[in-house]
Structures are given as C-alpha cells and as structure tokens.
C-alpha cells in the first residue's frame, strides 16, 4: 500500500504519497492500530463516564433512574435494581446512540438508548454539546450588556430571557418601573410566546411527519418576526428588554400591526387544529404516549406545559404574577392525561390565550415613559447628549462602566413557553454581576425523558422528545 518514493516538503519532514494521517496523541486517543483513523475517530467522540453503560456496569441508583423509576416510596414498592429488565438479557438488547447531530433531537441533544427490538428500555440524555459558558461570560459583562448574553440561551423566546434578567436587576436596584414599560414588555413577551409555540407546532408536526405543518408554523412566525424587526431592530436575539425598561418605544402604528397579526393567526389556528387534531394518525401517535403523572412531574421539578398537562394548574403568570398579568384576563390551560396530545393542545390553546392577552394590551396600553427616569440607570435620550454635558457624562458612564447595583441576591422567576425560567443574581456592588445563574426550564424538563420513553417504541421516543420542547441553548448555557 505505501509507496517507496518520498517527497520532501523542504522542512525536513518526509512525506510519502499514500500515508494515512497518524492518529493524534493525547487524551481521547488510544494507541494507533491498523484501522488507524477509524478507531481514533470513534474514541474521540466518546464522553466516557457520561454515557449509558450496560446494565451490569451501572450502579443500582443510576439504573433505576435510567429506567425511569422516579419515585422511591419509602414504604411502598421500591424497584429493585436486579429486577429491572431481567426478562431480556444483555445480549438481546442494544445500546444505540441518537445524536448529537440528528434531525429529530431538537438541537444538539444526544440520547443513548437501550433497545429491546424496537422497545425502549433505558434512556440517558447526554448534554453539553452547546455549552457556551454563558454564566461565566455574564460575570465579565456589565448589566447593560447582560441581555445580549442571556438572550441567546433560549433562542426561541429570547425576550423572556432578557425579561427575567431585567426583572432580577431591577429587584436589586429597587426601582419602580413605569407602567408603560411593563405593558410594552408584556406585549413583546406574549408575542414571543406565540412565535415560540408556533415554532414548536411546526417542529412537532415535523416529528409526527407532517411537513406541511412545518411550513405553516414558520409562515405565521414570519409575521411576528417582522413585527419584532420593526420594533426592536432584529428578528431574533433582540437585546431590547434591558434593566430599566426597554431600549426604545414602540413604533407608530403598532396597534394596527399587532391587530393584523392577531386577526390572521387566530383563524389559522383553527385550520391547524383541524389538520392535526382531526387526523387519526396524529391522534394515535400522540394520545397515550409519553405519559406523566402529577407526582412524577412534581418530583422531577417539571414546569410549564409538562406540568400543566398532568393536571396541575400551575402557571406563574396566574399564581405569582409579574409585570401586569394580574390586570389582564386569560385562562390557564390544563390537561388531564399527561400525554403528548395534552401538551400539544395546551400549547395550541396557549397561543389563543396569548392572542387574547395581546388584544387586551392593545386596549389598555398607557402613555408614559418606556424606561425608568433614573439618571444613574438609564442612558439619556440621544438628542440631549449634544446639549448637556451631564447627559454626555451619564451616557458615557452607563455604557462603558455600567451602573452599580447594590449588594444582595435575588431569585426571580417568570413563565417562559417552556416552564419556569428563573434568574438567581448575586451582586457585590460592582457594575458586573458576581454570579448570574439562569434556571433553564428545558434543563430540568429533560429529566422527564427516561420516564416518558420507557416501554414505548423508538418512534414514540422521538415524539416524546419533541413534546418536552427542549431548547439546547438554555439546557447547556
């Protein structure tokens, strides 16, 4: 195979024509073998102890967890690790790997699944493929720059991330927000909820093999994104909701734009309802699949549509209202069976409720300031910078050094389309956060996957994964 003629590169390293690259040395590579590159590549993408191991090599607690046994009842049935899947031996089951590059895992999620034929036994999600070190980055950015970082966590509902960070900073600052800024934020956040749920319906339809739903979902989403572009300047990752208010006021004519959006989306939702809910295949694939009970959901700290689908009527907008949610009327949609179909119908109806809220906001929007009139926190209007030296200095200080936040810590939670999105902020009195931790709902909701996939078919597992609605940006941060 190898040629005897060697060409010299001129730097003293001889090259032969048909030499394969040497497997790299260092961690992740074993000693080079005859199959050289292939073996090296396989070892390279292995994540060692984070993966799913055969039953014999897994400890009892972890075995129980992977098999979806969540509740450990002290006096009732405690699942014995030796009893898990004893009817199938290790030879008959197969551990396969799904992802991280996969069309159906909703981002870079890697699922290791032990299969008996087509039936799923144990599941282990391996995450971290999108870890961006955002919490570390947040310690280097000022509070004005913070929303640019945080907005890219849950990239399907970026305004929610900005909102929760801004609420946390304002809680520490102790400022009272002007009413108009609350209403503007609420409008944007509800529109974002609509666009996120429409996107979910698109990808969920795709996972159920309804490609037309994918196209329809994006069609509506484009309308909402066009409005965002008009208001915030960007289609995604807006950095518009900032501590102290919003970056700018709503553009003229926004009421008409928003009303057009609501009037267009609402009848189309009925079409999608007919397309999916009325279709026997869709119903058979989602009803009774991925069941969760309320105790399991509470034990696993699930929130959002997952918790509501099990029958627990918990919505932070209703239970612990923030912004002005106690001044608008909307229903909290609650499911019964905790299966995928319930979650689909919850999200569909949440779009309808969001439309209802948005219409009320259009009527009730007050006039006033869109950001807090505190000179130390809010930059001055751009026109004033030419006139007033003080305004120039304040602008400079706010944008270079940032404003100082009093020492303290706070935990603020909001209801994002995926569940409870929380921000735990520790400040040491400097213009940069000391510790910013975002409680991503998808990170916690993914723990439900082994439970939902257990005993189902592999195709049902794909739909279960979609029904959890994970956004890997906020899972991995």
């Amino acid at each position: 195979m190898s040629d005897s003629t060697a060409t010299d590169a001129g730097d003293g390293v001889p090259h032969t024509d048909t030499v394969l690259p040497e497997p790299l040395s260092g961690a992740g590579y074993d000693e080079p073998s005859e199959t050289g590159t292939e073996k090296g590549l396989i070892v390279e993408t292995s994540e060692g102890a984070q993966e799913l191991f055969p039953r014999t090599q897994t400890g009892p607690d972890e075995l129980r967890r992977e098999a979806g046994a969540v509740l450990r009842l002290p006096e009732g049935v405690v699942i014995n690790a030796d009893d898990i899947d004893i009817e199938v031996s290790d030879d008959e089951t197969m551990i396969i790997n799904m992802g991280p590059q996969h069309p159906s895992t909703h981002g870079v999620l890697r699922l290791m699944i032990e299969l008996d034929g087509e039936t799923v036994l144990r599941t282990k999600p391996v995450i971290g493929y999108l870890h961006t070190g955002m919490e570390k980055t947040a310690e280097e950015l000022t509070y004005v720059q913070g929303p640019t970082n945080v907005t890219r966590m849950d990239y399907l509902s970026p305004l929610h991330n900005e909102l929760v960070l801004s609420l946390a900073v304002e809680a520490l600052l102790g400022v009272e927000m002007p009413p108009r800024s609350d209403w503007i934020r609420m409008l944007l956040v509800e529109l974002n909820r609509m666009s996120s749920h429409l996107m979910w319906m698109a990808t969920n339809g795709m996972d159920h093999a309804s490609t037309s739903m994918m196209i329809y979902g994006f069609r509506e989403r484009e309308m909402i994104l066009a409005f965002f572009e008009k208001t915030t300047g960007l289609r995604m990752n807006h950095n518009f909701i900032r501590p102290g208010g919003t970056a700018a006021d709503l553009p003229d004519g926004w009421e008409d734009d928003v009303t057009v959006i609501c009037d267009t989306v609402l009848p189309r939702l009925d079409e999608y309802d007919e397309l999916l809910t009325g279709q026997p295949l869709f119903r058979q694939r989602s009803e009774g699949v991925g069941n969760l009970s309320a105790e399991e959901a509470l034990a696993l700290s699930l929130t959002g549509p997952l918790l509501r689908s099990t029958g627990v009527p918990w919505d932070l907008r209703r239970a612990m209202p923030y912004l002005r949610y106690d001044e608008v009327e909307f229903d909290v949609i609650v499911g019964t069976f905790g299966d995928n179909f319930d979650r689909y119908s919850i999200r569909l109806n949440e779009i309808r409720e969001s439309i209802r809220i948005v219409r009320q906001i259009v009527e009730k929007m007050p006039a006033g300031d869109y950001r807090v009139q505190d000179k130390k926190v809010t930059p001055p209007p751009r026109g004033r910078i030419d006139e007033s030296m003080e305004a120039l200095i304040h602008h400079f200080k706010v944008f270079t050094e940032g404003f100082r936040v009093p020492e303290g810590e706070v935990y603020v939670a909001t209801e994002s389309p995926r569940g409870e999105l929380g921000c735990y902020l520790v400040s040491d009195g400097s213009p940069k956060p000391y510790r910013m931790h975002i409680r991503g709902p998808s990170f916690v909701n993914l723990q439900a996957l082994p439970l939902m996939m257990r005993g189902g078919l592999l195709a049902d597992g794909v739909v279960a994964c979609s029904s959890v609605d994970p956004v890997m940006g906020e899972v991995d941060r």
Partner: protein
Amino acid sequence: MTTTTDGDATSDAPAPAVSTPRVRRDSAQEILFPTREQYLEVVGGLRDEGFEMCADLCAVDYLTHPGRHLPDGMVPERFEVVVNLLSLSQVRRVRVRVQVPATDAEVATLFDLYPGTEAMEREAYDLLGIVFTGHPDMTRILLPEDWEGHPLRKDYGVGRVPVQFKGAPGPR
C-alpha cells in the same frame, strides 16, 4: 420607592431567617441558613411542610467576595449551595443556603427527596467542583469528560483568546 432587600436575614439555623418582603408583585422569600449537618433535615422538614418542588439548585463561589452579608454566627465558606424550593399549594418560595468549605467541598445530595435535582447537582459539580455524596451519577454533564478544572470558579480564567485586528495600531 420600594425596598428590595431580598437577602436580609438574621438568626441561625434551623430557625427560619425572615426577610423583608417586596411590596409589589414579587413573592416574599425567606432564606434559611442551615449548616451542612442540618441541611438534609431542614430540607426534608420543608418538604413535609408542603414544598413539593425544588425549583432550582445552584452553587456560588465566594472567593473574591468574602465580605458578604450572613447572619450572626455563620462562618462564611468559599462555596455556597443555594436551593430554591417552591410550594404550589401555599404559593410561596423559600431559599436555603448552605456553606461549603473549599478543602472539603462535599455536601449531601437532595436526590432522594427531590429527584429533579439530579441534573442540577451534576451541573454544580461540573462547573464548581462540589461533590454531592449519594448522588447516583456524579459525573460531568456540560463539559467533555476529559476536561480539567471547574470553569465557574473564580480562579479559573474566562479563556479569552487574544484577537488580532488587521491594521491595528498596536498596544495602547
């Protein structure tokens, strides 16, 4: 102007330390400061009181901020594990903060009480190096398996790569 001190706490564990609640739409949060030995008992007691869900578990490295506000008698340590519990029936939250020393960075796991803390504790271990004893799978979750170090610690750099801009005039 509303007062905000969410973290004002006196007294020592396990008696609850009361904070001044925010006036507007936020929910008031008490903060408890148990020691490591009292930690499981306190959280178990809260669970029996009606806190069905553990909303969040995270950890903080206080290496560069040692002078933080703690109730009298509490010894500040380098790490702190912060647990946020939520009661759906009573609609309130409570926060539990445990001090964890740097040399012996171990604390009991909440997995038996709240299985939902499994991933959260793995993240705290991965990014800060705090080991949760009794956890079924104490491995890294976000970083590659062969990573060395715990990035969110204050003595771990951000890892910034110097960026060269074409035609830059040179160091200022």
